[in-house]
């Protein structure tokens, strides 16, 4: 128990150092205690700390400082202390935190916010505890890279070797760059593990993602408040927005399922996108270059963290600018051309120098150097990229959220010209349109991206605009004002309760479906035990084949060996061999499915594979009848075979 408490203290201190200190002190250095409320500073701190930690670690790797516990602690402390010194110099009198009525919540509002946050954390934790130890494929892949950086003390190229047929012999090809990963997805896990000593095969990655996910809800909350700052209902809109994205359909992607599933890029992106818009919005309204500086910094950070999130942001930004020019040409033109001093702002000039130096000297994101853009732009080929039906799109967003969001969109379109929130509406329109276009009609926009993944980005803008619609319909208005719904007070209250009950039942019933116990822990432990057995008995001359189809948590096996991203080789899902795109070789399939067949035998011989790990029920039979495969290990789920050459 003492060990557990020690590890917990170490973990929280590390989280404070990696995910809070750099961002907090940087915000202090730039804003002092002005311009941002306490809650805004708290929320932005996490997103900014992620970016600062990434940038610092990339610079360390570039100048040859190895990642160790000491070096990371010193660098993070040095950065935070420097920012604090700047703050002390710039803000000598240290005024009190700016108090704005925007964040002056009543007791009832505060209670509601606390209750929503409690439910959001409780429901996510309840789901996630059934999925520990982690077994998800994506998280296993990601943690390989984070562990590799921790093990080698520096960033490594994202490469992967594949089996190819050359001169009639199967062999492992030279490593080729892969574009699936972005550096910002991995560095914070490397830092947390090195500093806290937490194992990558533990609850720490999932806990970190839970933290990020909860902060993304708060990012939506502060963005909503700023979007509808001039509305008397701003707090109610923000609170309902928090409710709709925080507690309804909690388990569905991109919430708890993405946390447990280790969809790191989307989770980080869903925090950084609203924060980026937050700073652009504040610049648009307050015209201060410091907001533009942070907007640009967050935009840059997005592209160092997740390419898909970066793309969604970029397209939304372009869409917003075009819509603003289209619907509000005179005012938008005036805003753009009134910023003549901006190009000479030292702050912005320093950002441009920093960004250029970073991209060209320190680190260029791999998806740019690999020309991955070419694989995304063009004709859509893969089945999962061909677009969702409207029914599927609705299911991804959640029925209630989709209905409210659609109504909100319609309402905002109607109110667009006359409303004081027109720029907020235009941002929402652009954000939702980009997501809807790529998810529903990717061929039209010529973007080949997993449609379901893109649709998941929609829940946040749908929650905001849905909350706006909900509050607009049921707000209490002074007697002389016109009601949106010309109903009596009792009827309005009845309708409110009816719709609220529908939304809640719809959203919560979905949560209950996923909270049932499962046996994933037992199955995961079997895979880990078998991997441990092999890791202690195999040497560099041995090679292993594994299976993704029936083995649970198989992507985590490579963390026991740390030999290569493609070690062990594995049999992929069967359709990947049949679609003519994903798998060009059949060795990995036949070495498991038909080890006694001609191709299977040749692959074993050519590749020198001598160990096989398979599900004993599903794949044990074909090995048991072969004399040259010794069954050397057996637990409740897994058999390991040794091929005696």
């Amino acid at each position, binding site marked *: 128990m003492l060990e*557990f408490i020690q*590890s*917990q203290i170490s*973990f*929280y201190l590390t989280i404070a150092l990696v995910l809070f200190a750099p961002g907090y002190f940087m915000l202090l250095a730039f804003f002092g205690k002005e311009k941002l*409320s*306490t*809650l805004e500073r*708290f929320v932005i701190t996490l997103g900014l700390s992620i970016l600062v930690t990434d940038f610092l670690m990339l610079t360390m790797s570039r100048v040859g400082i190895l990642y160790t516990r000491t070096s990371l602690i010193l660098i993070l402390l040095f950065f935070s202390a420097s920012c604090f010194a700047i703050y002390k110099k710039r803000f000598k009198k240290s005024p009190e935190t700016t*108090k704005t009525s925007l*964040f*002056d*919540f*009543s*007791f009832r509002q*505060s209670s509601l*916010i*606390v209750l929503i*946050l*409690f439910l959001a*954390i*409780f429901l*996510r*934790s309840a789901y*996630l*505890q059934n999925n*520990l*130890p982690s077994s998800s494929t994506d998280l296993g892949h990601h943690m390989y890279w984070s562990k590799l950086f921790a093990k080698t003390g520096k960033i490594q190229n994202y490469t992967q070797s594949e089996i190819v047929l050359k001169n009639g012999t199967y062999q492992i090809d030279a490593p080729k760059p892969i574009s699936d990963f972005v550096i910002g997805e991995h560095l914070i896990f490397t830092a947390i593990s090195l500093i806290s000593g937490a194992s990558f095969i*533990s*609850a*720490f990655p*999932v*806990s970190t993602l*839970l*933290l990020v996910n*909860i902060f993304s809800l*708060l990012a939506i909350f502060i963005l909503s408040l700023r979007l509808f700052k001039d509305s008397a209902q701003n707090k109610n809109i923000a609170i309902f927005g928090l409710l709709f994205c925080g507690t309804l359909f909690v388990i569905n992607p991109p919430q708890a399922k993405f946390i447990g599933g280790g969809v790191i890029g989307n989770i980080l992106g869903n925090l950084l996108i609203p924060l980026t818009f937050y700073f652009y919005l504040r610049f648009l309204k307050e015209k201060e270059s410091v907001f533009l500086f942070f907007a640009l910094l967050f935009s840059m950070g997005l592209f160092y963290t997740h390419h898909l999130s970066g793309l969604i942001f970029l397209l939304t930004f372009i869409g917003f600018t075009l819509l603003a020019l289209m619907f509000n040409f005179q005012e938008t033109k005036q805003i753009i051309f009134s910023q003549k001093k901006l190009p000479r702002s030292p702050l912005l000039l320093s950002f441009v120098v920093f960004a250029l130096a970073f991209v060209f000297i320190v680190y260029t994101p791999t998806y740019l150097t690999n020309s991955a853009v070419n694989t995304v732009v063009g004709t859509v080929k893969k089945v999962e990229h061909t677009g969702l039906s409207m029914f599927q799109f609705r299911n991804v967003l959640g029925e209630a959220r989709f209905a409210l969001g659609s109504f909100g969109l319609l309402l905002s379109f109607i109110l667009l010209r006359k409303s004081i929130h027109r720029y907020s509406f235009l941002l929402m329109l652009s954000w939702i349109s980009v997501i809807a276009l790529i998810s529903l009609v990717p061929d039209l926009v010529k973007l080949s991206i997993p449609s379901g993944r893109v649709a998941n980005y929609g829940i946040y803008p749908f929650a905001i605009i849905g909350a706006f619609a909900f509050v607009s319909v049921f707000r209490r208005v002074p007697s002389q004002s016109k009601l949106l719904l010309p109903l009596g007070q009792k009827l309005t209250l009845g309708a409110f309760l009816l719709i609220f009950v529908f939304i809640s039942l719809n959203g919560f019933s979905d949560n209950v479906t996923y909270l049932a116990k499962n046996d994933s*822990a*037992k199955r995961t*432990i*079997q895979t880990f*035990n*078998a991997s441990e*057995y092999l890791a202690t*008995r195999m040497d560099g001359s*041995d090679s292993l084949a594994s299976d993704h189809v029936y083995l649970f948590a198989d992507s985590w096996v490579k963390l026991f060996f740390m030999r290569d991203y493609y070690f062990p080789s594995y049999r992929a899902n069967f359709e990947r061999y049949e679609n003519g795109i994903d798998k060009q070789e059949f060795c990995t399939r036949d070495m498991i499915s038909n080890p006694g067949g001609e191709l299977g035998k040749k692959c074993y011989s050519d590749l020198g594979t*001598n*160990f096989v790990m398979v599900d004993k029920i599903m794949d044990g039979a074909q090995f048991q009848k072969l*004399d*040259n495969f*010794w*069954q*050397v*290990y*057996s*637990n*409740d789920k897994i058999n*390991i075979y*040794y091929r*005696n050459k």
Partner: protein
Amino acid sequence: MSNEKKIIILLAVFLVTGVSFLFYSENKQLNSTDGGWALYFENPKSTDLTFVIENRGKTKKIHWKELSGNPANTLREGDVVVSSEQKSIIPLSGADISKGEKITIEASDQSDGKKEIHKLLY
């Protein structure tokens, strides 16, 4: 203290509780989940027949047999009690086994859970 600060403090408390709960749950799952037991050769690549029964669940009494040929002849057998999180190493030599013979180690617990491993000696 403003309500805004109270929200932040309560959020921090919820988050620490939630995250600690996840760590605790994982710890508990790892310790209390019946990880079952495994049967394996200590040296998978050699003809050495020494095998191990490793127990990741509750204490078990396991009966093992060394079998050879078809139909199988029992060469040796025995019982072993393996405590939780412990392993029992049973040394067996393959020296007295003739070449080309398939040796199977079969082990079963009291609840009829049966596992086997084998080597074909050359």
